[in-house]
């Protein structure tokens, strides 16, 4: 195991949380700008401490890096054990990066209980980093559950009119899976004779029946988070009710936690069950791509449309994972990262419109380009990335998964490739109705183009989307060894 001098992962987790608590302490609604600036400094510092994770990362080893290991609850051998590999490191960085956008996006928009709002996001950012960095199963579980609380609060307090229903739905859906996960972890604890280390579980021999039960228990938790069809219906409701920042983090990061769980738990702990049940997951993934793609087409609410498109895109991720090819697994991870940028940007774009018009209904718009040309250009870039256009990040993962799928089964690829048509149809049809055309009404007539704050956010994300589309090699390089190691592991039967 590679260790480092500074406890970088601890910093990545606790810097945002400490800043979050500080924001909570100093913030008063009378002087919200203090809270805003402090939160921004917190988000920037949180991102800054993750930069050494990138620069100091050793791409030649699959072992956990930046490892920290302390005793936490000795009675149950629960440890405060952190470490990242090529699969988890990008998400720690991505999460810390996207937190900055959440703070900036809220700058002028959130005017009530500013400090609580910003604090909730900062704390959540730290907790999510904990999820990706935890090497101890209970530590993982604690972070995994704890991050639900701020999200629940964000939707329930700053959400739209139907926010309480959405928050409950979100909470209940995710709680159901979580409880089963806990049962599975406790079982593994006894089975491994007293270990909560995830790495130990990877080596633990299990019978096929045990594996299948454990796999299904994890599936309940992770499938809800991804979300996979048919446990996806909380997501559109949550998005519609959530404020912009909530949607950004929900889409960009929270969904990734579920997919990450498959790679860290399901596949390596239950490899035989994974192979056994891969048909089920592939079927659910392809349903997500096609069925959800069609559903997205008929949405009248922009946020719902993008929410459904998120589900369809995440279908590519789970499809890629369960084809067990290097190309598809890496494609799936690339898709996760890209989706972080693209869906985050899409929700910011919708937020930009919502802040001006207070409507997310496509029918209320039309001809926005006449008033907001700069915005329209940036929005088009993200729409195209959402539709998987080459030279944007949205293309990379989809292309890799489709290419890899052909190797496994032509018809998987056939169904998955339908996204080329469906993705373009629902995204560009929405874009056409909102952006193009004559000015639809006097509300659109009065629109102002994006200001410098909004431009800075969208332009930064645009650069990310383009760079990753034109040269994804640095991202794929980081994960090669870890993915190869994972697949090697998955290929070995535990029976």
């Amino acid at each position, binding site marked *: 195991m590679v260790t480092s001098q500074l406890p970088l992962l601890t910093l990545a987790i606790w810097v945002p949380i400490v800043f979050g608590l500080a924001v909570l302490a100093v913030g008063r609604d009378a002087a919200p700008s203090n809270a805003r600036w402090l939160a921004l400094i917190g988000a920037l510092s949180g991102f800054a401490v993750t930069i050494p994770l990138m620069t100091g990362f050793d791409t030649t080893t699959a072992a956990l890096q930046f490892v920290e290991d302390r005793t936490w609850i000795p009675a149950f051998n629960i440890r405060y054990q952190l470490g990242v590999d090529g699969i988890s490191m990008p998400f720690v960085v991505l999460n810390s990066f996207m937190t900055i956008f959440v703070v900036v996006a809220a700058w002028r928009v959130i005017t009530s209980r500013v400090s609580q709002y910003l604090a909730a996001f900062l704390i959540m950012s730290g907790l999510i980093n904990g999820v990706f960095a935890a090497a101890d199963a209970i530590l993982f579980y604690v972070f995994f559950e704890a991050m639900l609380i701020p999200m629940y609060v964000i939707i329930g307090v700053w959400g739209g009119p139907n926010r309480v229903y959405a928050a409950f*739905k979100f909470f*209940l*859906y995710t709680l159901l899976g979580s409880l089963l996960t806990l049962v599975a972890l406790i079982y593994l604890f006894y089975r491994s004779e007293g270990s909560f280390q995830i790495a130990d579980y990877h080596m633990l021999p299990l019978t096929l029946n045990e594996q299948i039960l454990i796999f299904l228990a994890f599936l309940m938790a992770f499938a809800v988070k991804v979300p996979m069809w*048919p446990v996806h*219906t909380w997501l559109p409701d949550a998005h519609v009710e959530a404020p912009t920042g909530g949607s950004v983090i929900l889409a960009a990061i929270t969904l990734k936690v579920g997919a990450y769980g498959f790679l860290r738990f399901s596949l390596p702990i239950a490899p035989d069950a994974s192979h056994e049940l891969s048909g089920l997951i592939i079927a659910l993934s392809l349903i997500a791509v096609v*069925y959800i793609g*069609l*559903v*997205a*087409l*008929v*949405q009248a609410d922009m946020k719902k449309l993008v929410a459904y498109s998120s589900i369809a895109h995440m279908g590519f991720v789970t499809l890629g994972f369960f084809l067990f*090819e*290097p*190309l598809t697994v*890496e494609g799936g991870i690339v898709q996760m990262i890209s989706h972080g940028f693209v869906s985050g940007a899409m929700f910011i774009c919708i937020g930009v419109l919502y802040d001006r018009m207070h409507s997310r209904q496509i029918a209320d718009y039309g001809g926005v*380009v*006449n008033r907001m*040309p*700069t915005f329209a250009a940036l929005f088009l870039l993200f729409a*195209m990335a959402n539709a998987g*256009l*080459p*030279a944007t990040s949205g*293309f*990379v993962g989809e*292309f*890799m998964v*489709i*290419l*890899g*799928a*052909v*190797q496994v089964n*032509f*018809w998987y*690829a*056939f169904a998955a*490739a*339908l996204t*080329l*048509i*469906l993705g*373009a*149809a629902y995204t*560009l*049809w929405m874009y*056409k109705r909102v*952006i*193009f*055309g*004559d000015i639809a009404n006097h509300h659109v007539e009065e629109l102002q*183009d994006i200001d410098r704050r909004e431009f800075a956010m969208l332009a930064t994300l645009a650069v990310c989307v383009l760079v990753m589309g034109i*040269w*994804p*090699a640095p*991202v*794929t*390089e980081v994960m*090669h060894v870890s993915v190869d190691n994972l697949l090697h592991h998955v290929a070995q039967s535990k029976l």
Partner: protein
Amino acid sequence: MQSLYLLVPLAPLAGALLAGLFGKTIGRAGAHTATILGVAVAFIASCVIAQDVIVHGNTFNGALYTWATSGNLKMEVGFLIDPLTVMMMLVVTFVSLMVHIYTIGYMQDDPGYQRFFSYISLFTFSMLMLVMSNNFLQLFFGWEAVGLVSYLLIGFWYTRPTAIYANLKAFLVNRVGDFGFVLGIGLVAAYFGSLDYATVFAAAPGLAGETVSLIPGIEGSLLTIACICLFIGAMGKSAQFPLHVWLPDSMEGPTPISALIHAATMVTAGIFMVSRMSPLFELSETALSVVLVIGAITALFMGFLGIVQNDIKRVVAYSTLSQLGYMTVALGASAYSVAVFHLMTHAFFKALLFLAAGSVIMGMHHDQDIRNMGGLRKYMPITWITSLLGSLALIGTPFFSGFYSKDSIIEAVAESHIAGSGFAYFAVVVGVFVTAFYSFRMYFLVFHGKERWREGGHAAGHGHALAAAHVSHDDGHGAHKDAHGHDDSHAAAKHDDHAHHHGLGPHDNPHESPWVVTLPLVLLAIPSVVIGYLTIGPMLYGGFFGDAIFIAETHHALAEMAEAFHGPVAMALHGLGTLPFWLALSGVVVAAVFYLKRPDIPAAFKARFAGLHRILENKYGFDDFNQWFFANGARMLGAQLWQRGDRAVIDGILVNGSAGLVGRLAAWVRHGQTGFVYTYAFTMIIGVVALLGLWLSL
């Protein structure tokens, strides 16, 4: 030399970025100077590279950078510079340069001036990346990137409902093609383990016998399936039946891009791609037959539609469809060099015809209906002569460029013996008459006869002709309209009023377009006339393409044609006595009689065959069917899945149902919580008895 390769695509990209991102700062003159400079540099560099390749034989195949690696698959961006590439580079940069210059005149009053230049330079970059690629990945990059720019340009006048309908349609239909294309690339990657052309082509013969079973129990040849998938991509991009439906609608875009993208370059990407893939297609007789038949259907049936069009641009658009069909037929007949040869000659004369049509449209004050034109030759002499030359080239008049390429296609099909070649031969021969007829119908209606706009009462009912309204509001770029004025003081024609009303009044005279418009016409007319005569020898029979194109030994159409070829003069003289020439001539004569002497005849035809006419007017019903079946069908399906699947079943029964179940359960259990001591005592007793019973029974 390698840095020169890089300069070719990057110079237009730099121009595009300058004009696109800093359009406000550099102004109109800055935007067109930067982009024209970029494309001119690319053209000159292409000439130098072409000379290096053709004279010195210095081909190149190498990677620029590694895009990504995964598993054993290495995905790179790189260049393949061989005779096929340089020919495409020359065509693309030359036509693009002409179109850039022309645009100064055509778009001079448009508020989106800088944006337009940025787009067409971006297109040039994308197209160059496509043709210069040495691998499938970058090919697909360019492939989709040109689609994106096409989308942007068709919808350039984004307030027009027809334009933003057409650009979405174009993008989606192309995506259907790309769907097949990506699967084809996937099959190549899966079985060859590489996306690099050279590696794949070298391994292709070894996989000729490989079969795959897509449907259990039925084995199909891998290469046949892969080639057909790839060809579906070509059908989208090159607008082959039944994915042709987007091209006529793309005429909503400004005319310069109709010439550049939807005639000369982008739509020929499919032809180029199949030629590039000749080492794959040659190994599958079935795939070639599919290519041949699809091409033949397109060549003939799209030509028929050209006859009934009244919008000047749409006539040319259907003619483009038909000519793309000719090229595809040549591909199917294994005459790849002939297809590419026709691609080149067509690029010149079709770009010319489109730009001339644009000049006519300007002269007519943005009226596009040929029924309102007539006698324009007096007012627009340069446009007239160049149009005539372009039309003569198109119909295959001996000694003109189109003759050499089209006649070669007909010859190649005659020599081909694969399944479907009989039908293809019939289609391309009949197509000659059809082409001549619709081309000269348009030519006579526009340049000869009565000056019909003087008669008033413009032929109504052609929405597309009226839709030429330029965006008149300020879109952010337009603010410089006044500040910079017209950069081109030579622009004699004043079009200031064309944003306000369309078409000429009865007393107006059309006038010739400014020199920035007519110069490209003249520069395109020259190759339209002579390029075939000059290049047929080396390109078809002189081994110009070398190793770039592979032809299987069993396909000897081209070899047999080579034996009969005795120089371009002999070929042209021989052509005077062949069936296609007489068909073309009769097409011209019939058009002259119908539309100059006896306009009552076509009217009578129209009345007599009203049903047939309606089928043609409805474009065989494809648009209606697609709208009904695919567009409405997908929406209906989506709505059903959403309402019934998500809402009724998942949310209604599973989510809210289980929540309701818990609620009902709780309500029932609550009955126990009465607050009366006797209830609790009674419950306790039952519990104790139950536990005792359990204990005793163990």
